[in-house]
């Protein structure tokens, strides 16, 4: 039974993708209906899967020597992420019914979205590293196709290829780690790697651990690969909400959490993870302070929040990171979709042109504020609990300076979140934009997500129990909701953190309101080049092209030079062979 459910949750969206594609673009209504139908079915099945959570593989198919056994393991971690992908996926699809209304090439859009949902569930459910990689690459492919969806726009094309190349470089890390593990263990099973990690040669294990860190950082847009996510915002907004906020970028966090028990003993690994998270969280938060494009600001905040999760893993807080992942997926999807409703309605993403839109679209304003408060970490929304949990663990298990910096990050978060809300919905009207209210489909998904923002933290106890019991090797601490609530509320650190958040809000109110649109001054050049890494990317591309240009001279097209190639190669091979003899 569990096997059927697991198979369904992967195959259903793919079948839906095929169905939408076969429906042809002429029948737009049918395509919308099919996409919604299949994604909602997937969501329901993914929730049913919670009942079948288990440590053992639900499906096992032997595939031969080079590929190992194809297994799918519905353990707590996998089931949680599957549910996030499927439920938020279905909400994004429902939202798209309004958002993509009247768009050409709907077939391609829904095909890629549904294909992505299936791949994402496959990625987290797979118990075989090869297939983790397989699905990992498919998500990258779908993400590429969707970022470049409006491919008449050169910016969309450039953003897509950038995301593809950077995440693929990360993919090389996953590939290398997987294969080093295979060469030493003779198995692709994740369970085998986790169980026998301590028996591996220390050197090999270190290589695997750091390769996976590279893969995770690239996928989750963490430092030093953080440059692609802001440029990925050329995608249709529901896609940004689904892929670039709630699911695909979590794959990196998933990878780190999944292999944490295997790698925690590798010298320097935990500290590296912690630093990657810390640096990403801070520089992205600073970037978000001065971004003027609504979606870019949200993207920076995504990088920053993912940084918090990575930091939590570095500080031994695997469950805290996953709990924040859940909260973040819900409230960030909400923020993105609400932003999508605004953008769809006014036709621009530039916050400098918006302002005072709240009166025209009160519903969207309200849900956006809910999401923003969760992002800022205001009680009692889900973001508050999970962020406090991370900070508390950071205080316990990471150096004090790291904790202090993360705390500052929380203040910055409050500041930029408030700034976003202010610029879009309040203040004075800067341009006479005509906004129309959101459509029904939009309201449904926004409403559900807003409700989720209020309640997902209530599942703490259940999720904790589920993960702790199905991931024995992670040795997670068992806590009930009540225990954790009292722990958080009674800790002085929480009140201190809240003070910092309040300080961030207050600072914005006192100083930021007037100058919210002022240039960042000395910060600008740093943010524009993603703290130098943008220039690094450009430099790499340029050098590659220049080398290619140089090389192309060798293709002279003249017969005599071609013959020279043959003769000289003959001489080289002769010399090599004779020297070798």
């Amino acid at each position: 039974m569990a096997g059927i459910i697991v198979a369904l949750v992967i195959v259903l969206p793919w079948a839906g993708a095929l169905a939408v594609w076969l429906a042809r673009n002429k029948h737009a209504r049918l395509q919308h209906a099919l996409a919604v139908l299949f994604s909602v079915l997937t969501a329901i099945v993914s929730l049913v899967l919670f009942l079948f959570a288990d440590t053992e593989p639900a499906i096992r198919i032997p595939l031969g020597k080079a590929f190992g056994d194809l297994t799918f393991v519905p353990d707590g971690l996998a089931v949680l992420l599957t549910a996030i992908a499927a439920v938020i996926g279905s909400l994004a699809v429902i939202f798209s019914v309004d958002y993509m209304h009247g768009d050409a090439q709907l077939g391609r859009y829904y095909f890629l979205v549904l294909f992505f949902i299936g791949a994402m569930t496959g990625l987290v459910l797979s118990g075989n590293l090869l297939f983790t990689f397989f699905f990992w690459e498919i998500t990258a492919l779908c993400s590429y196709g969707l970022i470049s969806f409006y491919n008449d726009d050169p910016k969309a094309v450039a953003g897509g290829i950038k995301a593809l190349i950077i995440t693929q470089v990360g993919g090389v890390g996953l590939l290398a780690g997987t294969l080093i593990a295979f060469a030493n263990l003779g198995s692709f099973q994740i369970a085998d790697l986790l169980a026998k990690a301590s028996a591996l040669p220390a050197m090999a294990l270190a290589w695997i651990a750091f390769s996976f860190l590279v893969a995770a950082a690239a996928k989750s847009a963490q430092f030093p690969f953080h440059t692609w996510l802001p440029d990925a915002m050329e995608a249709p907004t529901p896609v940004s909400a689904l892929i670039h906020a709630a699911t695909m970028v979590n794959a990196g966090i998933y990878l780190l959490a999944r292999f944490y028990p295997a790698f925690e003993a590798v010298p320097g690994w935990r500290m590296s993870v912690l630093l990657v998270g810390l640096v990403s969280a801070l520089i992205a938060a600073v970037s978000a302070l001065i971004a003027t494009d609504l979606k870019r600001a949200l993207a920076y905040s995504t990088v920053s929040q993912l940084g918090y999760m990575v930091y939590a893993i570095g500080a031994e807080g695997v469950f805290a990171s996953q709990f924040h992942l859940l909260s973040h997926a819900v409230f960030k999807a909400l923020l993105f979709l609400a932003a999508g409703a605004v953008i769809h309605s006014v036709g621009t993403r530039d916050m400098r042109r918006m302002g005072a839109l709240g009166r025209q679209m009160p519903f969207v304003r309200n849900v956006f504020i809910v999401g923003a408060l969760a992002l800022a970490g205001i009680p009692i929304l889900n973001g508050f609990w999970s962020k406090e949990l991370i900070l508390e663990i950071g205080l316990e298990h990471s150096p004090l300076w790291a904790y202090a910096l993360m705390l500052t990050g929380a203040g910055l978060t409050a500041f930029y979140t408030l700034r976003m809300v202010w610029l879009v919905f309040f203040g004075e009207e800067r341009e006479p934009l005509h906004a129309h209210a959101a459509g029904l489909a939009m309201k449904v998904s926004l409403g559900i997500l807003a409700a989720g923002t209020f309640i997902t933290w209530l599942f703490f106890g259940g999720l904790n129990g589920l993960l702790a019991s199905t991931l024995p090797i992670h040795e997670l601490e068992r806590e009930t909701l009540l225990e954790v609530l009292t722990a958080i509320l009674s800790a002085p650190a929480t009140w201190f953190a809240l003070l910092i958040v309040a300080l961030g809000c207050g600072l914005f109110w006192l100083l930021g309101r007037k100058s919210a649109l002022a240039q960042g001054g000395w910060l600008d050049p740093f943010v524009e080049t993603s703290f130098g890494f943008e220039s690094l990317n450009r430099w790499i591309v340029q050098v590659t092209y220049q080398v290619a240009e140089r090389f192309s001279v060798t293709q002279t097209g003249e017969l005599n030079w071609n013959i020279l190639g043959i003769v000289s190669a003959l001489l080289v091979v002769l010399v090599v062979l004779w020297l070798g003899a």
Partner: protein
Amino acid sequence: MIFTPLNIILFGVVGLLGVGLYGLLITRNLIKVVMVLQILIKAVILALVLAGKLSGHLGLGQSTAATVIVADTIVAVVGLALAVQVRRRFGTLDVPRISTLRG
């Protein structure tokens, strides 16, 4: 004694091969290129006969040599035919001037 008949043939092979390869490197006229190819083939034919002699399988060496003559005549014919067409289309047989595909 260095100038045994076998050695003289060996020098012939090496010499023809050298002339042929050098010719391919410097010849700029397509007809001459085909001719230089023929010089190379002659070197090879000589080498095959010599190899047959050296290994004591004279018949094998000679029959392969004969086959090579046939096969490479066809190559020469095709090469010359193409050269004729090239002359018609480009109006020249000069290698640099018919090198339009590059990069």
